[in-house]
Each structure stands twice: as C-alpha cells, then as structure tokens.
C-alpha cells in the first residue's frame, strides 16, 4: 500500500513537472525577450551617448529627414566657421566632421560586408570628446590613417571581412568614383564597446574630405565642446550667433534624444514582434495548465470528497489546489527566468546573423524583467488553475463513499450558448472590418474578431471538434481494426479533455496558417503587380535599397545591347509642411515604365511634377497647381503639377519630379534604381550576363529581369515567413508537451483497462498503436480546427488589406505539410506514454484500484 502511495506521488510529481514545463517554456520565452529587448536598447543608448558631443552644428531641419537613405544635403560648413566657433569663449573646442553616408566595405571574398543589416558609417576622426569628456574612439591595433588611401575599421568588421592590417580594403563609394581601395592601417572601437553590428570606416579629415566632398576643405557638421562651466544651452546659444544661414546648433542632449527616439521606433518594432510570440507561448501554456489541473482534480475527486467529509470547507479544498498551482508556478517561473537569460543569448545570436550585434554584457536580468516574468508566470498559472480548483471544491462529500468516482460535470450546453454568442460577436467584428466601419482600421476589427473567436473555438472545441473525432474513429477503425477503433473511442471518451489538449496545438496552427495564407497572397500579389507593372527588360537596384553612385548606370549604358538606362532617385522633402518621400526620375522614365496620363502630361522631360491619382484625390490637387517643396539643407523650390498618372502604379511615388530637381534641391545626385531597356533584337540572356558582369565587382547592385525581381521579393517574404514559423515553433512545442501530459494522465487513469486489454489478448504493439492513434486524433483535431481558422483569418485579412494584397492565394501544399506535421507531432507526443503503458505489468494493472 505504501509502495502504491509512493508510486502515486512519484507519478504526480511527473505530471506536475510536465505541466510545469509548459510554464517554464512560456516564462523563458517572455523573460528571454525582455532581457534581449533591454540589452538591445542599452546597446544603442550606449553607442548614442558615447558618440555625441556637448553640441552639434548641422544642416537645418536635419532631424526631419532620415539621414543617408534618401539623399544627402550637399550643404557644408567652411573651416572659417569652425574657427569662429572655436574662438567663442563658451566653446572649448570645435571640430569639423565629415560624415559620409552610403560607403560600403567589400569583404575579402568580394561580398558586401554587413549585408542588409546594420548600417555602415564612414567619417573622419577628430579629437572631439563626447558629452562625458571621453574620446569617442579607441584605437585597438595599428595607427590612425593618413589621407584617402588609409583607413581604420572597427575590429569586428575587420575580422568579419577577413582583412588584417596592411591589407588593401575595397570600398564602394556613394557618389562619383564608384570603387576605391584603401590600406587597413588600424582597428578601433567605440569607447563604449561594440558597434551593434554597424561597420565603421574611419578616415582622417583630409582623407574623408577627398572621398566625400571632392577634396574641398569643408565639413558637413561641427562637434562643439563646451568650456568649463558652460551648459549645453549656453553653448548652443553662443554658437548660433556665428552660424551661416541654413545651419543650426543643437544641444547634445537633444541629439541623443532624437537619436534614441528614432532608434526606439525601429527597436520597438522588433521588441513588440518578439513580445507577441512570447505572449502566444504563455497563452498556449495556460491552456495546458487548465487541462492538467482539470485532469488532476478529476482524478482526485475521492480525495477531495474525503477532505470535505472530514470537515474541510469548499474554500479550503479550492485553496489547497491553488496552493499547489502557486508552488508549481513559483518553481517553474524561476527555472523559466533562468532559461530566459540563456534564451536571450540565443536571440542575440540569431539577430547577430542579421547583422544586429548586441553587447553580451548588456544581456542581464533586470529587476523589472524578473518581476514581470514572475508576475506573468504565477498569475497565468493561478488563473488557469482557478476553474479546476473551484470544481474540486464543489465535490460532494458523499463522493468519497461512492464506488465510481465520476466527477460531476456540467453540461456543455452552457458553454455552447455563451460560445455561440461570442462567436457571433467575432463574426460581427469581422463584418465590421470588411464593411470598413469607422473607428478602427479594418485589420484591427478582423484582429479582434480573430482573437475572440480563437479563444472561443478553443473553449468550444469539444463540441465543434466532435465530427473530426468521429471521422478519426472511422478512419482509424478501418485502417487499424480494433486498436484503431479503441483509439478513436478513447479520444472521444472525454471530449473536453481532448478538446482542451488539441486547443493548444490549434492556436499554434491557426497562427501558422494565417501567416501562410497572408504570405502566399503576398507572393501572388507581388507576382501580379510585377507582371503588370514591370515594364523595362531589367531593373538594377541596391540589395539594401540604398542609393548608389551614378557610375553604375554609366557603366551599364556601355553594355552592348542596352538601349536605354532610365535613372530614379528617392528624396525626402517637406511638401506644404509635411514630410514626404518623393521620387525623381529622368526623361526616359515615363516611356520605359509605360506610364499613361490620366490628366495633363506624364512626360518627365517637361520639368514639371507628376502625381498619382491617389495623391491627387487625397490632396485635391489639379494639373497646373504649384507644389512648394523644402529639402534638407534648406533649399526651397516651387514646381507646377504637369500631369496625373492614370491608375496607381507601384513604380512611382505619390509625388514625382524630374531628375534635375535633385541637384537644384542641393542634394547629392545618386541613383536608387535603374530601369534598363534593350535594343530591338538583343539577346536578353546575353545582355543579362553582361550586366551581371558589370555588377559583380559591386556586390551592392543586383540586376533582375521580371522573374528574378519577383523572385527576390518572394525571397524576402519567405525570409520573414520562416522567422515567424521559427518563433511559432515554441508554441507548437508547448502544445506537444500538453499532448504528452494528457496522454500520460489518461494512461494512468486507464491502468485497469489496459491490464484487461492485455489480458484478453492485446499485444504491446497494439497497445502502443492505440495510444499513438489517440494522440494523432488529438493532434489532427488541433490541426484541422487551427488550419480552418487560419484559412478564415488569412482570407479575411487579405480581404481587408486588398489594396496591398490584391490576390488571395491559399498555399494548399503548405497546409498539407502542416497536416502531416500534426500527425508526426501526434506520433512523437505518444512515444513516452505509449512505452510506459506497454511496460505495465498485466497483473498489477488489472488489480489496480
């Protein structure tokens, strides 16, 4: 008897450990994301703080424009101005900076260093200290460079690119002469440590001036260092007096804040993205807790009844269960937080492969992280255990005396009624989204409907999923005979338990399928758009969508068989006071892109602005109206609207101007894209090869025909898709744990039955198959419900986002793969419970009470 008790305790420990694992993983993901996010912010804040001086003189309005990506102001500061600034009594020193955007390192294998990740920063080194009075850069090896022929790289980049001191480093420059080489004479790092994955190319001042400013002795910005006892605002105030027009002086604190805010916008996207997946994992884990505790409570009905018979109050019985949940949650959260700390390093490694390096020493457990993780872990567990715990409290004392200890179960009717109402609300929300009801974006309406219905279907799965289980029973019975039929029956024996277990998998698969439908539609939409609007024979673009030197186009024009190279550049401008990205294109563009005029003329050679229909409608602009544009660096221009493009095209912006406007605006001329048209009769394959040969030494540039262009966009969609699948995998793993848990508990509950089956002639193999098939039935139920919901959600989202996702495409082959994966999941989850069951001693099993 004592042995039996011990074994029961051991078994219970095992069950608790399994459900605790669900919390452990959920909390680990959460705390891992929190640790990673904090490390991310700290890394960037450290760099920003460590590189900002007391004050900065810069082109007016610079903060309104994203630096470098969409053109650089050609406005500069002369050494005279720097000298006048330095002479001010409030200024300790003034150092002229040369900031060069758009320079890239080609690594020793001929590939682009850094790829699509963190930026490459090229600048001149000065002695200017940061706000804390420290040097911005620390030399680690070698010496600082002299002239345009010598550079210092940050240590990480030099290593990644495979360059050592004395090597000749190939550089791609953003404007003018395309390629140059410089000798690596030293390695350095930011005073604060890492570069977050950014590449630093450091020249001396004359070198930077030669490379970026055509050798003129001028600067792009000035770093100001305050004299002793002078505040930043006093410094800035004094500096303003001597500044030329179009320039402003800004306190260092403001620069830091602007940079951090700009960074935060980008980082918040990553953080929120990760946090969403962490919460999904926690919610899936909660389902498993509910289920485990429901089963435990059911199995302990007699024990609870005995407690009640001995005088325990309902509340005491309930509290006992909750206390057990609390202890488990405390333990699991502790393990989870520790695991999260390690997981944060995994995330950091993953992001580092995308070019975002987090300083390892910043990946720490902060108090906030620990408190949040414990709170979420414990709260979720307690809430999940509350329902089963209350059920335990409701057990009648007389149940202790009863032979059969079937716990009282409420009918599923109440569940169904409430569930149907919530489903109706979800449907209403989805319809509101489709109908475009005001108050919220359509996708948000659909999102609310999806969230509500997902949870409701999870709760209603015993009812909704019943036909799936009936089908499983029929199929299994046909395929596997008695053991299949028994498996089907077992899965239907307690539909709540099966449903709740399947729900965890259902949530994961609903999300995966939604994403699959969206991604499939996105790819199909891209194909359609590219097919309709990819008018030239080839397009040459930067792989990181950055502008590049006009020399690339010059070289491509020389290729045999090329008739026309049409150039486009993106610009940031203020249009009537609003920031707007506008397009600039040369005179060939409208022909090459086969643009058609809705009104006026869409000739880019006419010196007039050309807008698209949407923009015209939105702003109420007409042909002949005049637009007022302001550019970084302070240049202002007026331009008349010459035409409105018929139908919306993805190859143009809302506002487009002729290419010559770029130089008039005081912006450096570069190209963002080149549209290439071939001579009649030219062999496209041969020309493509020739163009590729031109692009080969410039790994920044990619030449694509229509199919290749669509393919490269599909590739980007896929990359994101696989990352999301990877993050959702954790939710699936937690769901597998749930199935293992439920099966383990069911096997335990059916020990006698298993003994009987074995006695009357079921082989171990048949028994294992029975349990495996039951597991597969659960997994299939989760998969079918999840994929059905995912299909609905994906389709609805495509409908409300049909401006961008023009085509609905359901990736049936992928869904089929998901279904097969679900079967595999079922088989895997059954391994442990099945082996355990088949090892049961027949005699012991049959005589178990």
């Amino acid at each position: 008897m004592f042995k039996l008790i011990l074994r029961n305790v051991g078994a219970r420990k095992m069950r608790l450990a399994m459900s605790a694992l669900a919390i452990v993983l959920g909390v680990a993901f959460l705390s891992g994301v929190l640790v990673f996010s904090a490390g991310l912010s700290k890394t960037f804040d450290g760099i920003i703080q460590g590189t900002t001086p007391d004050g900065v003189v810069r082109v007016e309005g610079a903060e309104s424009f994203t630096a470098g990506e969409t053109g650089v102001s050609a406005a500069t500061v002369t050494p005279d101005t720097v000298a006048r600034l330095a002479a001010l009594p409030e200024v300790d020193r003034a150092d002229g900076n040369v900031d060069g955007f758009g320079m890239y390192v080609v690594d020793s294998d001929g590939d682009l260093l850094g790829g699509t990740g963190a930026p490459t920063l090229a600048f001149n080194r000065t002695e200017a200290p940061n706000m804390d009075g420290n040097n911005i850069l620390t030399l680690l090896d070698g010496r600082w460079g002299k002239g345009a022929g010598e550079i210092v790289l940050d240590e990480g980049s030099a290593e990644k690119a495979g360059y050592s001191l004395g090597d000749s480093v190939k550089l791609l420059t953003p404007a003018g002469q395309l390629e140059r080489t410089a000798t690596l004479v030293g390695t350095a790092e930011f005073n604060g440590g890492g570069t977050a994955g950014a590449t630093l190319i450091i020249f001396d001042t004359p070198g930077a001036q030669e490379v970026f400013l055509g050798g003129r002795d001028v600067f792009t910005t000035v770093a100001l260092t305050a004299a002793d006892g002078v505040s930043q605002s006093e410094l800035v105030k004094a500096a303003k007096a001597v500044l030329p027009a179009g320039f402003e002086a800004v306190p260092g604190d403001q620069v830091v804040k602007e940079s951090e805010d700009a960074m935060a916008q980008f980082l918040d996207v990553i953080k929120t993205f990760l946090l969403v997946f962490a919460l999904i994992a926690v919610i899936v884990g909660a389902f498993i807790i509910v289920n485990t505790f429901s089963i435990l409570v059911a199995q302990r009905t007699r024990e609870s009844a005995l407690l009640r018979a001995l005088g325990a109050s309902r509340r005491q019985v309930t509290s006992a269960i909750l206390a057990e949940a609390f202890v488990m949650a405390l333990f699991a959260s502790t393990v989870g937080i520790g695991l999260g700390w390690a997981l944060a390093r995994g995330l950091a490694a993953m992001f580092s492969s995308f070019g975002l390096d987090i300083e390892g020493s910043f990946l720490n457990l902060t108090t906030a992280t620990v408190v949040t993780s414990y709170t979420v872990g414990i709260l979720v567990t307690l809430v999940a255990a509350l329902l089963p715990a209350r059920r335990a409290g409701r057990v009648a004392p007389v149940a202790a005396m009863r032979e059969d200890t079937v716990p009282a179960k409420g009918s599923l009717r109440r569940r169904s009624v409430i569930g149907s109402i919530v489903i109706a609300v979800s449907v209403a929300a989805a319809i509101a989204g489709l109908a475009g009801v005001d108050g919220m974006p359509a996708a948000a309406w659909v999102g609310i409907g999806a969230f509500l219905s997902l949870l409701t279907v999870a709760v209603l799965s015993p009812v909704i999923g019943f036909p799936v289980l009936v089908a499983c029973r029929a199929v299994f019975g046909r395929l596997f005979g008695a053991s299949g039929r028994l498996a089907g029956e077992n899965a239907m024996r307690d539909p709540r338990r099966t449903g709740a277990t399947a729900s965890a998998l259902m949530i994961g698969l609903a999300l995966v399928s939604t994403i699959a439908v969206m991604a499939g539609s996105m790819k199909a939409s891209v194909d359609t758009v590219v097919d309709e609007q990819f008018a030239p024979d080839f397009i040459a673009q930067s792989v990181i969508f950055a502008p590049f030197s006009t020399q690339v186009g010059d070289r491509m024009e020389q290729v045999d068989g090329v008739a026309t190279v049409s150039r486009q550049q993106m610009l940031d401008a203020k249009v009537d006071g609003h920031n707007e990205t506008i397009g600039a294109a040369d005179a060939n563009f409208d022909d090459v892109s086969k643009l058609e005029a809705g009104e006026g003329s869409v000739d880019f050679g006419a010196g007039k602005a050309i807008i698209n229909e949407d923009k015209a409608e939105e702003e109420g602009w007409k042909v002949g109206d005049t637009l007022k544009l302001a550019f970084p660096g302070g240049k202002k221009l007026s331009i008349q609207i010459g035409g409105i493009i018929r139908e919306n095209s993805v190859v143009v912006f809302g506002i487009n101007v002729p290419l010559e406007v770029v130089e008039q605006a005081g912006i450096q001329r570069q190209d963002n894209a080149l549209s290439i048209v071939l001579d009649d009769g030219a062999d496209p394959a041969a020309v493509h090869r020739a163009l590729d040969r031109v692009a080969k030494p410039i790994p920044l540039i990619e030449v694509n025909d229509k199919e290749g262009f669509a393919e490269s966009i599909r590739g980007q969609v896929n990359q994101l898709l696989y990352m999301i699948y990877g993050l959702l995998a954790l939710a699936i793993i937690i769901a597998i744990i749930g199935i293992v848990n439920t099966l383990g508990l069911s096997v335990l509950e059916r020990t006698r039955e298993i003994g009987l089956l074995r006695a009357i002639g079921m082989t171990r193999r048949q028994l294992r198959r029975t349990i495996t098939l039951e597991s597969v039935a659960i997994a299939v139920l989760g998969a079918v419900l999840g994929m059905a919901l995912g299909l609905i959600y994906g389709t609805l989202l495509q409908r409300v986002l049909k401006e961008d996702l023009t085509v609905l495409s359901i990736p049936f082959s992928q869904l089929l793969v998901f279904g097969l994966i679900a079967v595999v999941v079922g088989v895997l989850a059954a391994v442990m419970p099945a082996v355990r069951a088949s090892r049961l001693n027949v005699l012991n099993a049959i005589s178990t009470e």
Partner: protein
Amino acid sequence: MTSPVVTSPAAARAVDLTKVYGSGESEVRALAGVTLDLNAGEFTAIMGPSGSGKSTLMHCLAALDTPSSGQVIVDGTELGSLSDKDLTVLRRSRIGFIFQSFNLIPTLSARENILLPLSLAGAAPDQAWFDAVVDTVGLRDRLGHRPSEMSGGQQQRVACARALVSKPSIIFADEPTGNLDSVSGADVLAFLRRSVDEFGQTIVMVTHDAVAASHCDRVIFLADGAVVDELARPSREEILEHITALQAAAVGNRRDTGA
C-alpha cells in the same frame, strides 16, 4: 487424499509449480509445488482460504504470471519458453477470461466487447456461433449498449460471452459472481454450466463461494500453496464442511506455530 482420476485429456496442466515472492526473511511461497491436470470439458472450481495461492495458481495457468519454477502446459503448449508476444497471442486465441469486476472496455458496446479478442487477432467472427452464444446469455437486445448502460449481471454475462466467442481451449473465471447479487450470480453460473454441458467448454473458476462451487464437476482445495484435497460433483454442504475443516486446520496450524 484421493488421487485425481483422469476422465479426459488435460486442457491445462501444472507440473510442480512454485511461485515465490520476495526473498530471505520476507520470502512468501504462494505456490509450493502444485501438480494438477485440468480436464477438458469439465467445470472445475479452485477453492481455498485467503492466501492459499488459488489466485496465483490461476494467474500462472492463464499466462498472466510466470511461475518461479515448474511447468505450465496449456492445450499442449509449454508456456515457459514463450515470449510476451506469444503469450499474448495464446491468451487471445486459446484462453478466455472472466474477472470479478471491470471486465469490459467502457468505450465499446456489448457487441464490440464480445468481439474484441477476435478483432484484436484480426479474425472474422463465426456468425452462427456468435448468435448461439449471444442467445445463450440472453443479450440479443443489449448488444448496442455500453457497459455503463447495463446492470452488473448483464455486464458479467457480456464478459462470459466474450470469453466463449473465440472458442478457447480453456476459460478462467476469477470470482465471476463475487460482485453480483444472488439472482444475477445464479444466472451467470447457470450459463457457465450450460457452456460446459452443451458446448463442451472447459472452465476453471476460482471462488470462495460454496454455492458457486456446487455447480462444478470437480472442486480442488488449496491450502498454503498446495493442493490438499478434491471432490467430484460435491453438494454445497460437502464443500462447506471441507472448507470449515481446512480453515480450522489453518487456524490450528497458526496456533501451533505461534505457541
């Protein structure tokens, strides 16, 4: 002690069977050298006080437990050399079981429960035989019901039908009436009796109920792991007498060793 009279060939045979649990001080000899032939076409009862080893003997004979030494031969097959899988197949095809309680799979209907050993073996049922068995136990109108929808007596009759339907060489019944009221118990016993008389079935029943044993052709008495006596076609009174004597002897023994 009278030596067993062989009236027909043995359906199952035990030769010098021992079963020992534990070791050293705590060693318990549940079976201390049992040699026994169970005759085909007979209804045999195994009786004895608690701890006499009657259940252990049945478990060993029924291929549910392995003896510490000795041989078990069922329908000509020696069990000692068989793997778990072979034993399972043997149980499925040549042995029928009726337990005291929890005899049926709750998720299956009566018909499915009856046919379970056959469907596990992947064998097709003999419809005429199935009908005969079902009519004998009087369950025709209950075939679609699940165990939870049937009385204890009905459930036990389903178990009997299941044991019979695969035409086993021998059926082992472990206190089949132990959980039933006297009327249901009598039904089940009458049914077992008929299976022996009409179908020539071999049945071995472990019981401590003298009324149940009085339905049998032969009653074997066990005490302290050994066969001590047996009676042919005894009356209820004869059996009770025998048991009382055995129990008195056992109590006396214990007093002797205790003193």
